[in-house]
C-alpha cells in the first residue's frame, strides 16, 4: 500500500497527529478536561467551514477558532463550572454557523463530511508540512510548561502558594489542546477528536501509574491505533475514521476490563478510612 502517494501522506499525517494527540491527551485526561477537548472541536467546525467559504484550507480556520475559544475558556476558568447549559448552547451555535457557512458554499457535501468525520486519505502534502510545524510547536510548548502544568494539575492549592499562576498555566495548556484538536480533526474529523485524544491516554492511565511511561504509552497507543486504522481501511475499504475509532474504542475497553495491578486496593481503602 506504500506505493501510493496518498497512502504515504496519510501515514505521515496520521503519525504526526497521533504523537500530539497522545501526549496532549494524557494531560487532558489527568486534568479531567476531556469535555474541553470535545467542546473545542465543535467550535472548530464553524472555523473550518468558514475557511472553506473564503477559500482557504480548513485547517487554518479550525486552528483560529479553537485557539480563540481555548483562550476564552481558560480566561473564564472556574466561572464556566456548572454552566453546562450555557456552554452547550454556545457550542450548538458554533455548529449552526458551520452549517450556515457550508450552505453558503453552495452545499458542498464532501467538504462537510471531511470536516465532520475526517479524511486522512485526502490530506495534501502541504497539509503534512503544516502538521509537522504544528506538531513541533505544540510538543515544544507542552515540554516547556509540563513542570508547572503537572504541579498545577496534581496540587493546585500548593502550586498557587508556591507562585504558579494557575490561570496562565490553564490558558497555555488549553491553547496547546486547541492546536492538538485542530490537528486531530484532520485525521478523524471534528466529531471524533475524542477518540484520538482521550481514548489512548485514558487507556494508558489504566495500564501504568508512572507519568513518564504513561505519556509514552499514550503516544504509542495513538500511533498504533492510527496506523493500524489506516491499514485496516486500505484492506477493507471501510472509512479510515471508522477503523481508527473502532481500534481506539476496543483498546480502551480492553484496558478497562483488565484488573488494576494491585488487588489489595479494596482492602487498604476500607482499612484506611
Amino acid at each position: 500500500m506504500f506505493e501510493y502517494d496518498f497512502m504515504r501522506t496519510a501515514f505521515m499525517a496520521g503519525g504526526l497527529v497521533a504523537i500530539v494527540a497522545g501526549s496532549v491527551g494524557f494531560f487532558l485526561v489527568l486534568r479531567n478536561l476531556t469535555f474541553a477537548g470535545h467542546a473545542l472541536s465543535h467550535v472548530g467546525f464553524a472555523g473550518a467551514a468558514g475557511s472553506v467559504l473564503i477559500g482557504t484550507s480548513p485547517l487554518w480556520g479550525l486552528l483560529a477558532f479553537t485557539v480563540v475559544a481555548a483562550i476564552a475558556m481558560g480566561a473564564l476558568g472556574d466561572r464556566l463550572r456548572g454552566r453546562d447549559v450555557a456552554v452547550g448552547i454556545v457550542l450548538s451555535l458554533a455548529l449552526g454557523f458551520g452549517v450556515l457557512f457550508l450552505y453558503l458554499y453552495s452545499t458542498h457535501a464532501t467538504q462537510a463530511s471531511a470536516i465532520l468525520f475526517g479524511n486522512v486519505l485526502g490530506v495534501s502534502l502541504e497539509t503534512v508540512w503544516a502538521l509537522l510545524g504544528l506538531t513541533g510547536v505544540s510538543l515544544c510548548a507542552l515540554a516547556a510548561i509540563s513542570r508547572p502544568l503537572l504541579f498545577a494539575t496534581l496540587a493546585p492549592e500548593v502550586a498557587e502558594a508556591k507562585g504558579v499562576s494557575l490561570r496562565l498555566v490553564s490558558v497555555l495548556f488549553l491553547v496547546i489542546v486547541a492546536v492538538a484538536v485542530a490537528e486531530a480533526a484532520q485525521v478523524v474529523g471534528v466529531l471524533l477528536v475524542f477518540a484520538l485524544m482521550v481514548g489512548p491516554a485514558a487507556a494508558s492511565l489504566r495500564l501504568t501509574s508512572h507519568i513518564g511511561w504513561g505519556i509514552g504509552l499514550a503516544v504509542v497507543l495513538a500511533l498504533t491505533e492510527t496506523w493500524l486504522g489506516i491499514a485496516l481501511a486500505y484492506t477493507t475499504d471501510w472509512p479510515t475514521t471508522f477503523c481508527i475509532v473502532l481500534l481506539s474504542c476496543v483498546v480502551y475497553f480492553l484496558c478497562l476490563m483488565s484488573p488494576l495491578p494491585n488487588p489489595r486496593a479494596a482492602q487498604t481503602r476500607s482499612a484506611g478510612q
Partner: protein
Amino acid sequence: MTLARGGQPVLADVSVAIHPGEFIGVFGSNGAGKTTLLHAILGLLRPCAGEIKVLGAPPARGNPAAGYLPQHRTSVADLHLRGWDFVASALHGERWGLALTGRAGKREVERAIATVEAQALAARPLCQLSGGELQRLLLAQALLGKPKLLLLDEPLLSLDPHFQQATVALVKRVQQTERITVLFTAHELNPLLDAMDRVLYLGQGRAALGPVDEVITGEVLSRLYGTPIEVLRVNGRILVVAGHGLVEADAHRHDV
C-alpha cells in the same frame, strides 16, 4: 497586624511572636482566621495594617522556606498515578520546563518520602491509598526542599482517631529531627495536647498565644468566643464547654 478577607476584618491588631522550632497548635471556630493567618504567612494575602515577618523577612509567595499543606485540596484520590510521581510533581513545580526530576531531584524526593516513612506508599497508585496514607504523601510534598517552617491547615480533618494520632506523632517527630517550626491548625485540642509547645487561639478578631495551661482557660476562651465558656479537665483531656454544649463538637458540625 490586621488581616481582612473580602473586606471583612478577620484578625484585628493581633501581635504574636513564634520562636524558631516551636510546634504551635492553632485553634478557633470556623471563620476565626486560621486559614487566613496561614495565607498571610505564605504571602497570598497582605495585611491591611501592620506587618508580618517570616523567618526575619516579609512574606513572599513561593517562599522555599515555607512548606504548606492546604485544607481544601483538589481530589487526586481517584487517579491511577503512583505516589512517587505525585510527591515529585511539587519539586520545583513553579519553574517552567520539562518535568524531569534529575538525580539530585530524585534524591530529594526520596528523602522527603523517607522522612514521612512512606516508601511503600510511593510505589502504589493514589487511587489505592486511604485518606491517612494520602495525607502522608502530602506531608512529604510539603517537606520538599527542607523548609524551615511547616504550615499545616487542618491535616486531621476527615481522618479517624487512629490516623489522627499517627499524623500528629509523625509531624512532631519531623519537627524535632529537622528542627522545623510548625503551625498546625485543628478543631480539636486533645489530639495535639502532647505535641504542642504552645497554643495560638483565635476568635472574635483577637488572638491568645501561650502554653496550654494559660490559654485554654475559661477566662481567655470566654473573651475569644464572646460567650461564657468553661474548661474542664478530665483524665488529662480537655473539654471546652459553652452554654449550649461542647464547643469543639459544635465546631465540627459545620464542617461535615
